[in-house]
């Protein structure tokens, strides 16, 4: 068991590095070289976040994104950094009940907010139903986008329950239902490079109690 978890850790390290490289390749050219006089420091600021039910008080450079706060300062590395520009959805977390891209938000903007990450949804042995459904339906290959997919999917079902409209809804005055086209449209902010979309849709549909 320890050998297999060692392997899992190193495999994830490799995958993480791979994703970071891909993100640099797709991001617009970085401007650092053009702006040599950029390294002035701003005073750090205190911020308290309630993450997965527990208060954390930190002192942070105002530049620190919510994503980097989770990963680098609290070592909650379940939330992933993909593109770091709000395009891929790997960093999706649930803040005050709403899913957002944690890469496009500053930690200091979230004073007192309640943040739920993949670690807060379920634990090994006590999986959230969405986590269990992703396992059952093989809703991933490499797994890098999976925490973001699962956080997004949990929030999507809540959005449908609350009547949040979508682009594919035929009638805006009729309550939306979690059919396949609705789930696909609502999940379009989560990219899966491995292309596990069909299985992801099946996993979400099972939790929603609707045919995929």
């Amino acid at each position: 068991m320890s050998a297999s978890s060692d392997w899992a850790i190193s495999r994830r390290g490799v995958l993480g590095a791979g994703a970071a490289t891909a993100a640099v390749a797709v991001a617009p050219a970085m401007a650092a070289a053009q702006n040599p006089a950029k390294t002035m420091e701003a005073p750090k600021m205190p911020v308290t976040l309630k993450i997965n039910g527990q208060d954390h008080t930190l002192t942070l450079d105002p530049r620190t994104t919510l994503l980097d706060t989770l990963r680098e300062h609290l070592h909650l590395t379940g939330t992933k950094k993909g593109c770091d520009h709000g395009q891929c959805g790997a960093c999706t977390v649930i803040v005050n009940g709403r899913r957002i891209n944690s890469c496009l938000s500053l930690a200091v903007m979230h004073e007192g907010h309640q943040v739920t990450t993949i670690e807060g949804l379920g634990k090994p042995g006590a999986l959230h139903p969405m986590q269990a459904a992703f396992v059952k339906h093989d809703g991933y290959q490499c797994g890098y986008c999976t925490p973001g997919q699962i956080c997004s999917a949990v929030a999507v079902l809540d959005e449908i329950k609350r009547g949040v409209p979508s682009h594919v809804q035929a009638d805006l005055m009729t309550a939306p239902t979690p059919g396949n086209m609705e789930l696909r449209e609502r999940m379009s902010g989560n990219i899966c490079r491995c292309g596990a979309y069909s299985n992801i849709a099946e996993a979400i549909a099972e939790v929603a109690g609707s045919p995929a």
Partner: protein
Amino acid sequence: MRAFTYERAKDPVAAARAVAARPGAKFIAGGTNLLDLMKIEVETPTHLVDVQDLGFNKIEATPEGGLRIGALVTNTDLASDARVRRDYGVLTRAIVAGASGQLRNKATTAGNLLQRTRCPYFYDTNMACNKRAPGSGCAAIGGVSRQLGVIGVSDACIATFPGDMAVAMRVLDATIETVDATGARRAIPIAEFHRLWGEHPETDTVLHSGELITAITLPRPIGGRHIYEKVRDRASYAYALVSVAAVIQPDSTGRVAFGGVAPRPWRVEAAEAMLPKGAAAVTALAFKGATPTKDNAFKLTLATRALASVIAQAKVTPA
């Protein structure tokens, strides 16, 4: 990202004063566009004034029978509001055609109006861009310009306003309410809010430094069939090549504005008067004087066909 200082504003005039008093200061609300641009140092504010505590997060009925939408109402909450879905359907349709669920949960109404162009040359700091670096030139002119503007553009810039929500607000005759550092308020018709680039593409809107949007008002509902047709390279989560916001009345008259073609939502009232004569009659007038590139000339045909689709939909299921 360049370093900056950060404060949370407690009242609107203080927020406006904080930004007006410091060159390089900016408001931040949802931050989804601003932080993206700060990461690549296209935006380099030295101070951020966070306006999230100002209470502009309600949608209220106005005495005139319309709605006042707080500047901080999220895109999701605006699209979901029962009054908006019922009476201003084109607005809900436009909002849910844009961005992703995550972004709509964070992005605000005012921020959506203030989002910057997605011209790839504006994002690429190795390229000339008069909007990002005034006087440096425009690499888009003569570059790969398939996504870019066909009308209302200039020799200095051919970028488009990229949003969907504002295109719907343009056909609804929305008004943008602001307050400035002196406490003075003004109401700006959306038709006058976004500038045409001219010689100064670095300035997107008519707002003054430190002028803060507090609300967007909609006049009383006008009925009709509300349609937002968005043509794009993917079925979801992509910017418009061409979009059409329309309110079509049972007698075939109506209002129409185009997105993805110009520095602002493109509505020509004299052109929409031709709606009963069909799509080609409207676009012939609406796009008179267009200056497309060879890459994006297709947008003119696409605009006519997208509008024809809208008119056909309105006939199949009238208001």
